[in-house]
């Protein structure tokens, strides 16, 4: 069974008397271990789709299955729990807590985890992750003392601390220069390849999307291509070559 299975998702916002349909019947499945780029121009509904994928929002109609959980039927508390241990978020503007050390930022999700870990374990796990991302000497630095690339690496470490099944990156390179962007994207590829982590990168930049094996195009609330894996699931694969054939945005 696929990790993510979206079936005919509709999302309509109500602005006053007006109904604004944003997603108009999106169906999408993502296998475990895929690196998917979700591409679309602004206003195409990709942010809304990401919010639904990230369990921050629930669809107006349709079904969303995440690892055998029917997310569209969960209460907001249950969705919070699901976010905590199934999904890691990486944001465009990093969203680190200001005036808080990198270590404390990384440990943040663990304080909401259901199973209580000991302080020592929490600390060890966070330090280990930071070391892995070459941030061992930045553990006690505050975000304002870190470069953009370092901040994004701290954010990725935070996303991974609960060993999630899915990493959702929302324009992860939007605030970074091209060199650091490349670094971060290579990191995603590495994580995907080495640890079979499922990653969805939301972007409007074809250059970013080229790093993914599969690109899902969304326009005006419907998926225009890449809705399912061509040639069936091949978990754990990685390709340096851009595979975004047929994507025009």
């Amino acid at each position, binding site marked *: 069974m696929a990790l993510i299975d979206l079936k005919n998702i509709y999302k309509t916002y109500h602005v006053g008397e007006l109904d604004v349909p944003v997603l108009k019947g999106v169906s999408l499945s993502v296998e475990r271990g895929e690196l998917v780029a979700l591409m679309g121009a602004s206003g195409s509904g990709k942010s809304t789709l990401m919010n639904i994928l990230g369990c921050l929002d629930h669809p107006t109609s349709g079904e969303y299955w995440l690892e055998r959980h029917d997310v569209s039927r969960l209460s907001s508390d249950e969705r*919070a*729990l699901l*976010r905590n241990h199934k999904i890691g*978020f990486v944001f465009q503007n990093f969203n680190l*807590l200001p005036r808080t050390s990198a270590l404390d930022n990384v440990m*943040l999700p663990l*304080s909401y985890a259901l199973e*209580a870990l000991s302080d020592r374990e929490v600390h060890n796990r966070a330090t280990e992750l930071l070391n892995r991302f070459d941030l061992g000497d930045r553990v006690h630095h505050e975000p304002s003392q870190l470069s953009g690339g370092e901040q994004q690496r701290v954010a990725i470490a*935070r996303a991974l601390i609960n060993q999630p099944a899915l990493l959702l990156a929302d324009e992860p390179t939007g605030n970074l220069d091209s060199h650091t962007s490349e670094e971060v994207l290579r990191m995603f590829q590495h994580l995907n390849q080495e640890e079979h982590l499922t990653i969805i990168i939301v972007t409007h930049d074809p250059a970013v999307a080229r790093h993914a094996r599969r690109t899902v195009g969304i326009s005006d609330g419907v998926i225009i291509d890449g809705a399912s894996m061509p040639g069936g699931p091949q978990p754990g694969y990685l390709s340096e070559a851009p595979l975004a054939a047929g994507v025009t945005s």
Partner: protein
Amino acid sequence: MKVYRIIKTAMRALRRNPMRAMLTTLGIIIGVSAVIVMMEIGKGSSAAIQRTIASMGANNLLIHPGTAASGGVSFGAGSAMTLTPQDCDAILRECPAVSNAAPEVQARTQVVYGNRNWVPMQINGTTPAYLEVRDWTNLDMGEMFSDLDVRNASKVCVLGQTLVRELFSGEFPVGRELRINNVSFRVLGVLSAKGANMMGRDQDDIILAPWTTIKYRVTGTSLTNVNQSSASSGTSSPVNTLSKLYPNEKLILYPEPSAIQAANTPLPVRFTNVDHILVSAESTVAIPLAIKQITQLLRERHRTLPHQPDDFNIRDMTEMTKTLASTSVLMTNLLLSVALISLLVGGVGIMNIMLVSVTERTREIGLRMSVGARARDILRQFLVEAVALCLAGGAIGIVVGCGCSYLVTLILQWPTQTSLPAILASVIVSASVGIIFGFYPAWKASKLDPIEALRYE
């Protein structure tokens, strides 16, 4: 989420903005210390007021003997001769609610010094305890007579200010001799000025002397001799032998009975009686208890049967005690309401800052929600922050408040009294202020939509 981790998170959040946290706490610090200072000054000054009113006699009880009646003729209050000096001693010894007791024997006669004379309002025969009962112990000059003087019926006295003015006019009174009813008395001391009592009666117009002296040397008989019935029997009364030492101007209308006649017609033994017993209770609140104890004791001592009425009356200063109680209640309430208003203002300050904080940290809230914080986690975090601010403010406020009231005592010499209930109340109030005023901002934070919050600029 573990409790200590919630507290740690809240502390970390507060430490991110220490200046603001401090200023917010300041409101509560001022509020709590105001409550404590007000309560302590209030308590101190109401204790001082109570002492002042008590010195006017609010704690005092006056025990009158009962009423004598003969053949349908009542002789009015105090005419029965039932109170003895031993009653007085027993009251002091056996009633725990009584702090002091003094007998009183009264006379009204002329006082002569040199070429001046005066009839004082009160010539009181009593014991040294009288001054303690009346809260009058600091004398202007000289000293009070002693218990030995009472035992010896010494001819010594202590004067009130009015008498000094009327009789001595500038002369130093201590050590002089004056005459009361032709008996010479040495002045031992002068009482401090007490002024008029509540009825406008001059309390300084007084001579104090040992009650034995007044009873045996000055009046020769008790006040009850104004009654014709007692007066008629007075001639045959062997009340005192001392009075025979001095010329008694009483007319002897009938021949003295001989010893044989006296033996043939035995008269009931007359014991020495006093006119009143003045008692001071331990405190104003102990008055009803003291009355109960005295009543029980005197009924026992006087062998009063259960169906018989008391042969004495006890009066308390109800009017004064009522004033006292209402004064202290009024003062405490007034001060408390002022202090509570300042706490309320502090609480509004907390709410204000917490609301600003929620707005400012919208992104943080969104992030926390996206990494798995439930609405109740956010609510708890902000509530704990507010309560932590209030409790910290409360703790510092207690220290500041106690320090302030200490300084007030030190510098302004105002009386203060440490009040544990005030400290407890301010801790409870500051915690509840935190919960009440922290709840709305925390609730607002928990109701944020994570998507909106994350996008908030």
